[in-house]
């Protein structure tokens, strides 16, 4: 019975595709999320996930529901917003998070407007919240490629990313080219958001990045274990989220993110590091 509940759904090809895509997503997005949290860029992740929308919408208007078009449009829009927001904060008095917020509101409104031109709320729902069950073979390849590029790039630029984040003044003094690595990192964030939006939708794809990462901080004290735990949480959320979605006939994106959300709540209540429980215990 339990066996059936846990494994039988994956006899179907579309469920196996969905599972594989969420596993890949989790493996790439987990570490990216941990670095987002460490770099105190959670809000920027939020902004970027909204920024993907108008690009995806334009792709949809011109080409229809085709993954390459949506992804490419989303990727471009996300990058443009990331660069614009960075420029605005450097050239004006506005702090980066505020300038990101400005751009993401514009992007979100623009995206919704563009999709509404097609006059079908089903499409809007599809782009906003995605469907893991519609992941086909080309999408799988795209997601797997993005995950591989993400992991390889992170392995190469791990040290500068961490040092710049810990002590930006030091990094400037040693001529570390902080903005160069910052931009590479932003590109990785946008890529992973794009990878996520077919199955999770543009708005929820950040969920598989941020929730496992913030949860991992409650279980691990060092960065590497945080990476591994965030990946595990993302993978477990993906697996159980899909099962819940299948058995209860709910949309997959919200199920996956809500599963990650439950793990997040458990983590901040009972985690080993700085959780609610550790604050209650007498030292």
């Amino acid at each position, binding site marked *: 019975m339990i066996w059936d509940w846990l494994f039988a759904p994956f006899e179907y090809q579309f469920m196996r595709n969905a599972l594989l895509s969420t596993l890949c997503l989790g493996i790439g997005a987990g570490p990216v999320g941990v670095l987002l949290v*460490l770099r105190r860029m959670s809000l920027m992740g939020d902004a970027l996930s909204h920024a993907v929308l108008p690009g995806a919408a334009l792709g949809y208007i011109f080409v229809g529901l085709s993954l390459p078009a949506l992804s490419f449009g989303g990727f471009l829009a996300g990058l443009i917003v990331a660069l614009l927001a960075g420029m605005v904060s450097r050239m004006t*008095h506005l702090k980066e998070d505020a300038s990101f917020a400005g751009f993401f509101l514009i992007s979100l409104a623009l995206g919704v407007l563009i999709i509404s031109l097609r006059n079908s709320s089903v499409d809007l729902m599809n782009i906003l919240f995605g469907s893991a069950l519609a992941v086909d073979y080309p999408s799988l390849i795209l997601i797997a490629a993005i995950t591989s590029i993400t992991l390889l790039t992170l392995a*190469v*630029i791990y*040290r*500068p990313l*961490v*040092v710049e*984040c*810990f*002590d930006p*003044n*030091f990094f*400037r*003094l*040693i001529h*570390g080219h902080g903005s160069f690595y910052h931009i590479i990192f932003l590109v990785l964030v946008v890529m992973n958001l794009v990878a996520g939006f077919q199955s999770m939708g543009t708005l929820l794809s950040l969920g598989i990045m941020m929730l496992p990462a913030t949860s991992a901080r409650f279980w*691990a*004290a*060092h*960065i590497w274990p*945080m990476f591994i735990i965030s990946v595990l949480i993302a993978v477990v959320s993906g697996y159980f989220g899909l099962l819940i979605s299948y058995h209860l006939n709910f949309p997959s994106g919200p199920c996956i993110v809500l599963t990650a959300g439950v793990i997040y709540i458990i983590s901040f209540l009972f985690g080993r590091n700085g959780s609610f429980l550790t604050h209650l215990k007498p030292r």
Partner: protein
Amino acid sequence: MPAHDHSNNIIINDLHVHYGATIALNGIKGEIEPGSLTAVVGPNGGGKSTFIKALAGILKPSTGGIIHQCKDTCDSAYLPQYTAVDHDFPVTVEEVISMGLWRKIGAFKGFSKDNRALIHKATRQVGLEGMEQRLIKTLSGGQFQRMLFARIILEDSSLIILDEPFTAIDVHTSEALIKLIEDWHKSGKTILLVLHDLQMAKKYFDKTIILARECIAWGDTKKVLTEDNISLSYQNLLRGPS
């Protein structure tokens, strides 16, 4: 002591720094001799940190400039204010100290045996042996400063700039760190640090700069650190920019 060779002085050339409409530094002029040990004092908000940040190259002057006439490289090592670093960041003592080797190793290379020996030596010099694998958030204020001093040892720069190194630490650590600063001074490094404790400035530093948005006095500590100059600095800051 190194000879007074003026051709290598760091020249501060009518330095202005503005934060928007607020003037932080107004027309600072002077020269810093190589191998000198200088205390930067003055009232809060007088631009001490701004001055040394500009000197280190972290902050761009609004107008004017700083000319480093160094022979080999112009690299400087900088100790940030205690509160300017994230004490909760999940890195270990050893990881932070080893950042000091960045100019030698760069972003991608691994640590050689020699590098490891250097890291170990610096760790021992500041008395943090055995704490290498501790997370920095478990350190006391004094231990944290010791760790950053070890990083500066590894950086091996000819110009060392310290922003309030003795804030939030115990007397024992202060003494140990002063000893390190004296060692650096003996080896010919140029050292500038922001200080609050004027007695300490009198005791250890040959040169003093008093800043209160403008340069109130600059020169030999004995001549500069007078009560007149100190009260002048407070008046100057209260009066607002001229």
